[in-house]
């Protein structure tokens, strides 16, 4: 996050505590590899890097906004229907994103059609609303939302990168495996396209992550 250190006046906005809200989900508090949330969408949409990318951006937008809205309303929301309110906010934002994609970047929206709707079912979003936005001010909530969505997005892009590279030999649709490798007998691994390989790829990422950060091993 380059803007973290941009200027002195903004220091209070990016205090040490606020910076951690952004950076923790990328590392030791990652929603996917540590909390193991949002796994289902990782399996479904990481066949290609492009869909992973647009999904990551959409989730950042929805999650940042949803956290802010819930945080602004947090003192008025009746506790008994708070889950319903959260779901309504998320669903409305997702529908809005979907409509905007359809109107302005139709090609991408055609590729993503089902996946955009699936953002509603992403348990990370509601988890953060419930755990953070309901008890915190709008700005920290915004950072928390963006941070967690980015933590989700990073894993999504990593899995998408390897699955498209090994499964189709392309990245963002462009062929990247040189032809002479195919001539030497290299073949795209069709297995990478199937959902089980996403699970195994996520497993490998979790393994690498825990290997590098020993503190995580004892948590679970």
């Amino acid at each position, binding site marked *: 996050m380059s803007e973290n250190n941009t200027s002195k006046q903004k220091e209070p906005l990016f205090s040490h505590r606020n910076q951690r809200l952004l950076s923790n989900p990328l590392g030791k508090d990652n929603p996917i590899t540590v909390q193991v949330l949002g796994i289902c969408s990782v399996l479904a949409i990481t066949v290609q890097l492009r869909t992973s990318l647009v999904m990551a951006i959409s989730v950042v937008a929805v999650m940042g906004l949803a956290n802010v809205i819930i945080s602004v309303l947090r003192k008025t929301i009746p506790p008994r229907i708070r889950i319903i309110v959260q779901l309504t906010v998320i669903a409305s934002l997702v529908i809005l994103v979907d409509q905007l994609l359809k109107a302005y970047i139709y090609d991408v929206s055609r590729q993503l059609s*089902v996946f955009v709707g699936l953002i509603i079912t992403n348990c990370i979003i509601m988890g953060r609303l419930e755990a953070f936005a309901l008890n915190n001010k709008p700005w920290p909530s915004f950072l928390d939302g963006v941070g967690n969505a980015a933590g989700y997005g990073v894993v999504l892009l990593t899995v998408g990168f390897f699955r498209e590279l090994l499964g189709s030999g392309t990245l963002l649709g462009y062929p990247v495996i040189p032809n002479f490798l195919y001539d030497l007998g290299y073949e795209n691994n069709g297995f990478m396209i199937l959902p089980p390989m996403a699970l195994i790829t996520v497993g490998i990422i979790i393994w690498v992550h825990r290997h590098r950060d020993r503190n995580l091993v004892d948590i679970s």
Partner: protein
Amino acid sequence: MTNRYVFLYASAMVVVVALLLSGAATLLRPLQERNMRIEKMQNILAAVNIPATRAEVENLFDQYITTTKIVNHLGEELEGDAFEVELQDEIRKDLADRQLPVFIADIDGEVFYIVPIRGTGLWGPIWGYVGLESDMATIAGANFDHASETPGLGAEIADRAFQDQFKGKRIFDEAGNFHPVRVVKGRAPAGDLHAVDGITGGTITSNGVTNMLRDGLEAYKLYFEKIKTS
């Protein structure tokens, strides 16, 4: 917080959200509808192998598509604007009541007939356009799309590599009998003019394409035969 507050809060929330979303939908509808028209034109032209970007497609469509007409299953012409016919609604009707659109293209003096088809894949509808040469038997090109087939598997029917296999295949055999193109599991026999390779891991979608081609083109069979003999 009292029950009264909870009810009022929920009602107010619903009204606000409803206004917001219906407002957005109304504002964005003209843009979305234009996008859909453009996509439809792109798909129709793609069936006769004319790639068109979103910017140029409206001009190219006017340039190449010389005639559009609606026929019924007996091949008789009906009144109406073929472009506005929604096949989605038509395939729910009895065959006798269906309006079947035909788009006739003139490309450098050669005439092509483009017809829409629609069917079901694994998760939802699949549809496409088939372009026929003027012998009414040879496929000049085909274009398929889908609502929600599995990416990397069934969704490959929207891929050029899959669609290009249909070029040069035939929907009538030597004797003139209707014999649509099948999508076979694995590799199609070499030289078979009525079969193409299926998609590994996308068998149900492949079968959907087979059924769509059979049912969709059969509705036009009498029209095709009429043109062939005239």
